[in-house]
């Protein structure tokens, strides 16, 4: 996305405090084939899984996904055909993928530059490594200090997808625990689709403004979606469904045809369920309760 064009899209859109509540289906319909998507959370923390699930179900194509660290959802996006390219610092799925070209700081800085409205930002990371060359980074000498630095280009994705602990209908989103890069990708992106564990009243947001990570004017769609990261975790609410992920990982490891294994999983968990509650029913009440009980890590 061209720097000026990314700005113009934000300038032109209605950023007002409207009621932005909608359905997963309608929200994901905003994503066009070929779009660049930034994904909130990190590895298996606060992955906006419900939105990813719906993207795959809507048979989106040729998307580029930006995520700091990718987990199994990378396989799901690749094998489903939704993802043409992953831009990440780390990806440990089971299926064939490219090589991660960024360091975690490097990619994070791309989001921050996008959020700041500048086209690039300097760093001392990646200097002299093969990441520098494989990512095609430019060097630059600071005119004040004479220091040699790398410049990383900003990212302004078409859409950021994010799961927050609480949000109001205008899109003011609050995150408990690590915000990961969600504040930055929300501001870097031209549109934001937000799921939340719980919708709260605007007065609740105003009672606790310090924890608002994303202000409403960045957000375009809000969907209340409890367990919206499942089988990943939502900090302090539920931990990952380790048993499920363990079984999945072991199955993938053993499978001769890994792509077929993933296709099978997609069929059962993504395409067959009638809706997201149907999907959660596959994990079952006991899993939801156990991960919730263990997820209250803050006090345990």
């Amino acid at each position, binding site marked *: 996305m061209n720097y000026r064009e990314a700005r113009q899209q934000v300038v032109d859109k209605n950023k007002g405090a409207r009621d932005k509540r909608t359905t997963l289906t309608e929200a994901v319909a905003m994503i066009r084939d070929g779009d660049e998507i930034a994904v909130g959370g990190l*590895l*298996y923390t606060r992955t906006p899984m419900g939105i990813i699930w719906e993207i795959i179900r809507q048979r989106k194509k040729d998307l580029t996904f930006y995520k700091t660290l990718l987990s199994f959802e990378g396989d799901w996006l690749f094998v489903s055909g939704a993802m043409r390219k992953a831009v*990440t610092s780390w990806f440990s799925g089971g299926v064939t993928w490219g090589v991660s070209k960024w*360091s975690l700081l*490097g990619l994070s800085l791309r989001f921050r530059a996008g959020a700041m409205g500048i086209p690039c930002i300097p760093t*001392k*990371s990646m*200097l002299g490594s093969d990441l520098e060359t494989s990512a095609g980074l430019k060097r630059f000498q600071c005119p004040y200090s004479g220091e*040699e630095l790398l410049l990383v280009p900003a990212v302004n994705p078409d859409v950021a997808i994010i799961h927050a602990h609480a949000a109001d209908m205008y899109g003011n989103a609050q995150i408990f625990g690590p915000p990961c890069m969600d504040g930055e990708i929300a501001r870097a992106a031209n549109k934001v689709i937000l799921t939340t564990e719980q919708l709260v009243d605007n007065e609740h947001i105003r009672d606790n403004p310090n924890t608002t990570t994303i202000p409403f004017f960045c957000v375009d769609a809000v969907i209340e979606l409890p367990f919206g990261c499942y089988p990943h975790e939502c900090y302090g609410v539920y931990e990952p469904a380790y048993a499920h992920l363990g079984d999945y990982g072991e199955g993938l490891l053993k499978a001769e045809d890994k792509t077929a294994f993933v296709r099978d999983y997609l069929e059962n968990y993504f395409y067959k369920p009638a809706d997201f509650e149907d999907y959660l029913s596959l994990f079952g009440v006991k899993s939801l309760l156990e991960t919730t009980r263990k997820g209250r*890590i803050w006090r345990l």
Partner: protein
Amino acid sequence: MTDYNPAELTVVIGSRSLQDGQIVFVGAGLPLLAAVHAQHLHAPTLSILFEVGGVAPQVRIGSLPRSTNEARSVRRSVATPATIDMMLFLQRGLVDVGFLGGAQVDKHGNLNSSVIGTLEKPSVRLPGSGGANDIASSANKVFIISYHERRRFVEKVDFLTSPGFLDGGRSRENEGLLGGGVEKVITNLGILEFDKETREMKLVAVHPGVSVKEVQEKTGFELLIADDLQVTTPPSAEELTLLRALDPERRFLKAGEF
């Protein structure tokens, strides 16, 4: 007390290498064990940082996180900054020690966690840098923990994910990198450091029962050997007892290759 396995020995040496009051950036597994071990034994105010966003978490004994990037790694942190701000602590010089590992380490301490073979014709695709490059670039010093075998200890890494001393000599400084580079490589066979001038790997200690010959055979390049080569003090009963309590299911302290 000699019934310890290579992973246990390595973690104990990692623990001993840490000092009270240090700010330590760690990954999951052995480095985390080393840091928590040090906190409980001799470095009560050592503070851990995890890239997901936890400052000085209180990791729960018996419920160690499987990855550094999950809720268990953030438990009762004093602060939960954004990922970028965690990584920028490194760039600002606030992180005393970073722990790293990799699929390959070369004679100048460079690490590869990206790809075996070439980018164009990879034989094995690895997960990538994550925060490793940033730690290697900017932590004030770096400790590498690695299983010692010939295919890991190579003359030159296939892909330089995380900088050690690059081509040796002053090449690291010349590239403008900030951090001090690799101070120590801790393996199941011994402890290695780097020659001050050439920045080539030098064996400074072997573990009890390990010969220099064995270390050299399991290393894919010519090792320098310290004049005053030491033999590591084996783990004490106290060190081992604590360590095993930290990982009762032996999820990380497996007997074989780690």
